[in-house]
């Protein structure tokens, strides 16, 4: 029973727990809240781990729920550093300004060639952007592999193109919608995966499948389709050279955003990311470092 004495004891116990060092930030230890793009999740984790080796007193807490979720956090002032696989829209920047009183500050950390994945046994080698749009967009005409001129009867008897896509909070989804579908909507019935990695895994397990995701997520079960800008143009697979030269037409910068000018540890962290050490991590993960 709750007598007055036991209530006081409970109260003291509660105070003791809430003031214990385990639950309050440790002295001298600085954390950076880093959230946003799922495409950049493995990259951000690698940065955080490497940076922790150099500066053990700074810990960067990384999550990757999706670019849109990260930008929501930026608007609410809930994150120190937001990763984004697409550029902040002017309306979103205005909201950051009106909510927090500071302009969002943009950094380009590297590049990603948005890869188009197919199952490794798929005989198709290249695809034209227009065909990709016809496959994915609302009202698009292509739904069978034979319409792309390949015979998949052996591995995919239904001949149906199974479209893997991303759920709508993804920056990759929005980038694809802009760059490939020209702001049109997706055809109903695409399988919307909750992460970049899931798209590649799903395509790897589905011989009829096609999907788009960051180039760093490639596995042995899938292959890149070479992408041509227009019918008759040469086609290119995503790589350092083709992305930086602009030959690979669906490449995009990987962005970092802060609220206002970064200061202190946050500035150190961003400077380090843009330094050769941080850029080396990008190359190791499989994305493309900035031009020197």
């Amino acid at each position, binding site marked *: 029973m709750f007598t007055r004495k036991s209530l006081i004891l409970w109260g003291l116990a509660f105070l003791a727990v809430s003031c214990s060092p385990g639950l309050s930030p440790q002295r001298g230890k600085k954390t950076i809240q880093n959230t946003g793009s799922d495409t950049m999740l493995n990259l951000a984790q690698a940065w955080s781990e490497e940076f922790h080796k150099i500066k053990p007193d700074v810990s960067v807490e990384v999550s990757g729920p*999706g670019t849109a*979720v990260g930008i929501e956090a930026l608007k609410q002032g809930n994150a120190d550093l937001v990763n984004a696989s697409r550029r902040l829209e002017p309306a979103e920047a205005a909201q950051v300004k009106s909510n927090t009183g500071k302009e969002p500050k943009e950094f380009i950390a590297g590049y990603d060639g948005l890869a188009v994945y197919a199952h490794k046994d798929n005989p198709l080698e290249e695809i034209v952007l227009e065909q990709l749009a016809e496959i994915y967009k609302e009202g698009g005409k292509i739904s069978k592999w034979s319409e792309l001129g390949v015979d998949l009867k052996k591995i995919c008897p239904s001949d149906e193109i199974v479209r893997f896509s991303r759920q*709508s909070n993804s920056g990759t989804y929005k980038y694809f*919608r802009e760059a490939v579908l020209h702001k049109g909507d997706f055809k*109903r019935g695409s*399988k919307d995966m909750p992460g970049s990695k899931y798209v590649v895994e799903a395509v790897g397990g589905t*011989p009829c499948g096609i999907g788009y995701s960051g180039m760093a997520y490639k596995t042995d079960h899938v292959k890149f389709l070479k992408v041509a800008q227009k019918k008759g143009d040469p086609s290119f697979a995503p790589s350092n050279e083709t992305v930086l030269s602009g030959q690979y037409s669906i490449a995009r910068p990987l962005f970092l955003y802060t609220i206002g000018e970064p200061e202190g540890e946050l500035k150190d962290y961003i400077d380090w990311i843009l330094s050769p050490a941080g850029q080396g991590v990008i190359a190791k993960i499989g994305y493309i470092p900035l031009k020197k």
Partner: protein
Amino acid sequence: MVGWIYLCGVSSIIFVFSIFFFVFREGAPFLRDRFDFKEFFFSPEWYPNSDLNKRYGALALILGTASVTLFAMLIAVPFGLGAAIFISEFCAGKFKEALKITIEILAAIPSVVWGFIGLMVMSPLIIWATGAPVGLNVLNGGIVVALMSLPVIVSISEDALKAVPDTFREAALALGATRWQVIYKVLLPAAKNGLLAAALLGVGRAVGETMAVYMTTGHSVNIPFDSRFPLFHPLQSVRTLTATIAAELGEAPHLHPDPSGNYPPEAHHYQVLFVIGILLFAITFAINLTADLVVKGIRRKG
């Protein structure tokens, strides 16, 4: 002291009403400004964040939830009922206790683990066994949800069978009925309200399940029914009401109205997700209420 206990007692009522109030308040602007009954319930076009043409048709999502629930119950009700009959009528002693505990453990497996099993184990298995182009579909989600709702169905059915007085069994046996005849002709009719309630609570569990169906159904806005044989296609991917809320709430911007009280069109995405919440609330409320009334039915008969 009595005040404290009273507060504890009514707290659940307070919670339910505050949740309902909150969900309704967030969804209300959509219901006022944009809601179109015909579009919401009869159009499969779910494009809440389109740049060119925003559409809020939830038909495919409603049918997605319905198809997964239907498929799960086709598996779980016969299995659960069979298990309950076995536990209560054919089983005794240590084995009975062990079986009951194992079924309780089935209920304790977190839903994300079920989702993981569906994604990594069952999906390739389904492709291999059926030749379907994709393993994330109604079949996969239905099996996972069936396993998740089995414990509820088994334990409530078993309670219902246990509640049938032993004198019924003895009388039937004395008349020369076999063991099966006792079950078919006496126990099942006597316990039918409780068994129906068990099935209904299983349905409630299936409708509300989120994470596991998000991971196993393919999350694809698609209607798995059409006029081709056999009308219902469990090998197609679907998307459920609950998974849509889970996937989209984080990105949907929570915007405030302008001084004259009007919301920008981008605000409707957040609000329509709460309207889906209201719909889910109404569905589960109706199911639970029916189950409650059905159970009350047995009590009154004694």
